[in-house]
């Protein structure tokens, strides 16, 4: 290097005249080079920062400020070969002048080179957080809900599909800003393919009705789906899955259609599967309330006295033996003009659910021990037709009128072929009908900036009819050839609610007046025929009315002082009840009671909220206990009640702490709650080998419960891992009478712990690991029944190349930790081919590779332990091709 410097110094000696360096830049044919950079650095003393100059119109001039031992001059211009000069020990007093000729780079065909940055996964803008869907994909996701659960702050319930954001249940999931799906949004999250969605926006303090802005409860959260740019106009996807299941054809076919124009948004889905999947927002197996709307309308629905739900082990889609599900859904919203919108939602389900079960129960009453068993082969055919219409009209700038209409019909037919106590066969058939017809009208008028009036009217009519046919039927020691139980429960409701919402500075208030009119009627008949023992068959019938009128007025306030807030509320109710039947039973009462609540808390910052509340409620439980005469509910059980119109007095204490820092992807929630209930229906049970008779009566005894939920989530960016930890504890004490016992005081303690760890590497390999542990202990006098279970799931996702993903899932279940020999292992493999930028995907699924046929679950209560063995979904292989058009 030194030699080169010396040679160059000598070569340019004649032209060097001072410290300033100037020069001209031309190409080989004398054209001036417009822009070049000339960088000066020291090859010996590297401490100095570089100096530079940009040439202009072919000339440069730079006066250096640093001291150089060996000055390196690097000249670069785009499209030219760079040139390097060295000056050893440059003389500060001299001017160095250069005439530099740069040689053109040899022309070559230049290929396009694209270097891309990863898009930011989340963007924060006021109350809205925007998630970039692509950033959360690891390759094993197909439907929207599978990617939602990976987004910080968003949770998806594995069983129901319900979505929550920052610990609060999401009210609606909008499509491009419109509330198309209502509260049954799981039709979207279970069916829309991740390929269609570009962004998910989570909105805090969501108001669907803009007139409510700044008033009322603003704790609601919603999500908004932003579709990919190409997904405008009529687009859709077709997913066609075919394979083999138990030597039969396995199929999973779905067709989704989206039409988005300026004034109309429509989404339709049509699916069929026989692989155990449920794509609808309803649960036809366990009859859980899978969507918020069903929960909201719980008080409008008539109860089912004969249960036709199917017991299933906690194995998700493997929990049943077979299915055949058709699901059709259409959602459309049309903008009529600048003021009005009309929305239609139609749902149709036609399903077949198959299950095979073996229940074995050991009941212990002091020294007495009764063991029962039931083998059942179930076949349930639920059908549902649901139509909804919603009309929203902005009357003036400050007032709006909204109407919801709904018609729902759910016929269902369940047949059970069984074998009782391994001695005789029993067959039963349950035919149910459920008709709902309801209408809601809501008028909103914003009086001024600080107040608003809302009036809501609800008419609802619901009737549930059930027919149970049993062949034969045991009643105590008596056996009858046939038993028939026919029930009809009808419920008519009219509700009028008027509410004034207002604001005084930062404090909000609400004053409301309600009038509720409920008219319930329960009719039943029980027939037994052809007594084998030649006994006179008993004849039971119920024809009972339960009517009540409830007038209430109340007020609630939200006082805010800096970050502190206190929300008191009070409701005064006058309740007139009448319970009578056609055989002279008649009770009536008029009650006046107050229900206060108080919540106080601190909103320490945008991330941390702490609150505590105390509430008193008066609950009416009569609906589920109206039958004075016995009714038969299945091949083993009878029940009857002493109806009461007494109210349960419930005190509820709760403490909530929630911390969500989405920037750091960290969250923590602590919920403690305690309730004391004075008054409840207590069971007197007589359990024998062949049947059980339960009588319930309302008694003013205390029932206490306590629960704790802890949830912690953290993204550990250094190792690119997400850690979720859940723990919950609940305890309940309750009383009952079993087989002429004295009053038994019982207690149950449940612990649940789950830990989930998954990686988010950008390279080829990702994994997901989860551990779950449950502990349930029932204690009653001298009895202690303990059940502990353990689960472990491991999933490995391997990106073979840019389009191929392989995921291997292993699930290990230990339903009873005291019996280690009872263990289950499931293996599921999935191979995905998702070429980038292609509208075509292929997935190959191998499910339940080890072909495990049954699953034995263990449960207990205060007087028995049971084992439930159920047939589960057999091994299947499915090849699914997906095309987006």
């Amino acid at each position, binding site marked *: 290097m030194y030699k080169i410097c010396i040679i160059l110094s000598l070569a340019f000696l004649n032209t060097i005249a001072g410290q300033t360096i100037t020069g001209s830049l031309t190409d080989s044919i004398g054209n001036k080079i417009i822009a070049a950079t000339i960088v000066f650095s020291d090859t010996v003393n590297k401490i100095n920062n570089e100096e530079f100059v940009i040439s202009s119109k072919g000339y440069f001039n730079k006066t250096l400020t640093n001291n150089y031992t060996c000055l390196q001059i690097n000249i670069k211009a785009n499209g030219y070969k760079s040139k390097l000069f060295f000056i050893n020990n440059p003389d500060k007093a001299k001017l160095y002048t250069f005439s530099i000729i740069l040689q053109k780079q040899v022309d070559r065909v230049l290929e*396009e080179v*694209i270097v891309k940055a990863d898009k930011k996964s989340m963007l924060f803008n006021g109350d809205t957080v925007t998630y970039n869907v692509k950033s959360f994909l690891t390759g094993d996701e197909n439907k929207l809900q599978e990617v939602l659960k990976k987004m910080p702050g968003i949770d998806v319930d594995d069983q129901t599909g319900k979505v929550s954001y920052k610990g609060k249940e999401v009210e609606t999931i909008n499509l491009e800003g419109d509330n198309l799906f209502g509260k049954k949004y799981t039709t979207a999250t279970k069916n829309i393919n991740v390929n269609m969605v570009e962004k998910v926006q989570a909105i805090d303090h969501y108001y669907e009705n803009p007139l409510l802005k700044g008033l009322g409860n603003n704790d609601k959260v919603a999500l908004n789906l932003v579709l990919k740019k190409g997904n405008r106009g009529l687009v859709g996807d077709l997913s066609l899955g075919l394979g083999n299941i138990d030597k039969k054809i396995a199929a999973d076919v779905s067709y989704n259609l989206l039409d988005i124009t300026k004034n109309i948004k429509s989404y339709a889905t049509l699916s069929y599967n026989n692989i155990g999947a449920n794509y609808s927002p309803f649960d036809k197996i366990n009859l859980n309330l899978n969507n918020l709307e069903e929960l909201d309308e719980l008080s409008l629905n008539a109860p089912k006295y004969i249960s036709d739900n199917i017991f299933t082990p906690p194995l998700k889609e493997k929990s049943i033996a077979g299915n055949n599900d058709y699901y059709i859904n259409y959602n459309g919203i049309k903008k009529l003009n600048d003021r009005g919108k009309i929305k239609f939602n139609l749902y149709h389900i036609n399903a077949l659910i198959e299950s095979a079960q073996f229940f074995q129960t050991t009941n212990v009453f002091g020294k007495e021990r009764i063991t029962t068993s039931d083998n059942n082969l179930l076949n349930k055919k639920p059908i549902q037709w649901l139509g909804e219409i919603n009309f929203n009209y902005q009357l003036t700038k400050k007032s709006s009128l909204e109407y919801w209409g709904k018609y729902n019909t759910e016929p269902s037919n369940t047949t059970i072929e069984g074998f009782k106590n391994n001695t005789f066969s029993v067959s039963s058939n349950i035919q149910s009908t459920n008709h709902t017809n309801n209408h809601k009208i809501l008028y909103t008028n914003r009086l001024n900036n600080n107040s608003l009036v809302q009036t809501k009217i609800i008419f609802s009519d619901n009737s549930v009819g059930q027919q149970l046919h049993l062949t034969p039927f045991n009643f105590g020691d008596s056996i009858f050839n046939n038993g028939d139980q026919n029930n009809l429960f009808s419920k008519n409701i009219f509700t009028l609610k008027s509410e004034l919402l207002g604001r005084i500075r930062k404090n909000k208030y609400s004053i409301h007046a309600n009038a509720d009119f409920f008219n319930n009627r329960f009719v039943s008949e029980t027939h037994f025929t052809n007594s084998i023992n030649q006994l006179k068959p008993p004849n039971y019938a119920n024809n009972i009315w339960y009517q009540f009128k409830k007038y209430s007025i109340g007020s609630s306030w939200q006082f805010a002082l800096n970050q502190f807030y206190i929300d008191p509320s009070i409701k005064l109710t006058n309740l007139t009840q009448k319970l009578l039947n056609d055989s002279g039973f008649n009770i009536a009462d008029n009650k006046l009671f107050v229900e206060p609540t108080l919540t106080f808390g601190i909103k320490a910052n945008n991330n941390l909220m702490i609150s505590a509340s105390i509430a008193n409620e008066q609950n009416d439980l009569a609906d589920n206990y109206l039958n004075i005469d016995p009714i038969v509910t299945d091949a083993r059980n009878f029940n009857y009640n002493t109806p009461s119109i007494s109210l349960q007095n419930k005190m509820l204490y709760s403490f909530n702490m929630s911390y969500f820092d989405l920037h750091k992807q960290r969250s923590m929630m602590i919920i403690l709650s305690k309730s004391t209930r004075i008054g409840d229906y207590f069971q007197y049970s007589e359990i024998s080998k062949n049947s059980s008779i339960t009588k319930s009566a309302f008694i003013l005894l205390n029932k206490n419960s306590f629960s704790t939920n802890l949830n912690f989530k953290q993204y550990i960016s250094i190792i690119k891992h997400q850690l979720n930890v859940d723990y919950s504890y609940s305890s309940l004490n309750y009383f009952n009478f079993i087989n002429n016992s004295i009053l038994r005081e019982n207690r149950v303690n449940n612990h649940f712990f789950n830990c989930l760890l998954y990686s988010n590497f950008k390279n080829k390999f990702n994994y997901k690991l989860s551990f779950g542990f449950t502990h349930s202990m029932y204690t009653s006098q001298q009895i202690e029944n303990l059940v502990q279970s353990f689960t472990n799931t491991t999933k490995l996702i391997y990106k073979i190349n840019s389009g191929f993903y392989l995921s291997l899932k292993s699930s290990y279940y230990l339903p009873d930790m005291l019996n280690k020999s009872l263990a289950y292992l499931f293996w599921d493999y999935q191979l995905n081919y998702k070429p980038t930028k292609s509208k075509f995907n292929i997935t190959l699924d191998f499910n339940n590779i080890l072909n495990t046929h049954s699953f034995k679950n263990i449960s207990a209560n205060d007087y028995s332990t049971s084992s439930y063995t159920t047939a589960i979904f057999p091994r299947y292989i499915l090849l699914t091709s997906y095309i987006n058009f």
Partner: protein
Amino acid sequence: MKIKIVFAIFIILVFFTIKLQAQEIIVNYRFKFLPENLNRVASLAILNDSVSVFEINEKEVVNDEKIEQAEGTNDFSVKLSVYLNRKIIKHFNNNEVNAYIPDDVDEKKYNLIIDTLNAINWQLSNETKNILKYTCKKALGTFKAFKFTAWYCPDLIYTDGPWKFNGLPGLILQLDRDDQNLQVSAIEIIQHPAIKKKYTITEPYLNKFNWPAYVSYMKKYYEKMNNMMSAVFANVENATINEISINLIDLRIDKK
């Protein structure tokens, strides 16, 4: 209420579209201006040695000037919308920057502001970091009253960068204002793009200013707006009018 001032419109329609086969490089940047929660994708196309075009296209430009009243008070303030929609064309031959920026009244039309190139005295540093797999070097400089940190790539021999920034021995891939309110970072680099896009290097404009003249013109405009606000609320009892602060993005980034 919508306040409109009628400008004398003399639109010079000079349209010449050049199809440039020699598009050397296109860089897409994430452009964030945090005080207004603005987050846009901007692109810099270096067409040849002498011309580059920096563009931010906002799809929907809606004039939503609003008068806002603070909750439970008679405090009024005017909220003016902020537009980033623009085209900044650097002419290296004549050392000039032509910025076509939206007019404050008719946001769908442009004013042409002429500024000079190479106005920044950059201090190079030996510190390096990787951006989009390129090794970049750090440089510090002051541009119109704000201090900036630029990360340039000596391997991409273009003395150019986002917005009006240039004059470093390599292409600027990241730029951070020291108050962290302005952040620009490259998200995609396309060298020798296969699909050649047409760029127009002139636009029709309403008015033509040099930078000092534009600053003085806008100050007068805001003064006039404030006077109009005072007049509008003159009859409202106990009304407090919050002075309209200069909202135009150019005056908040290219501060005088």
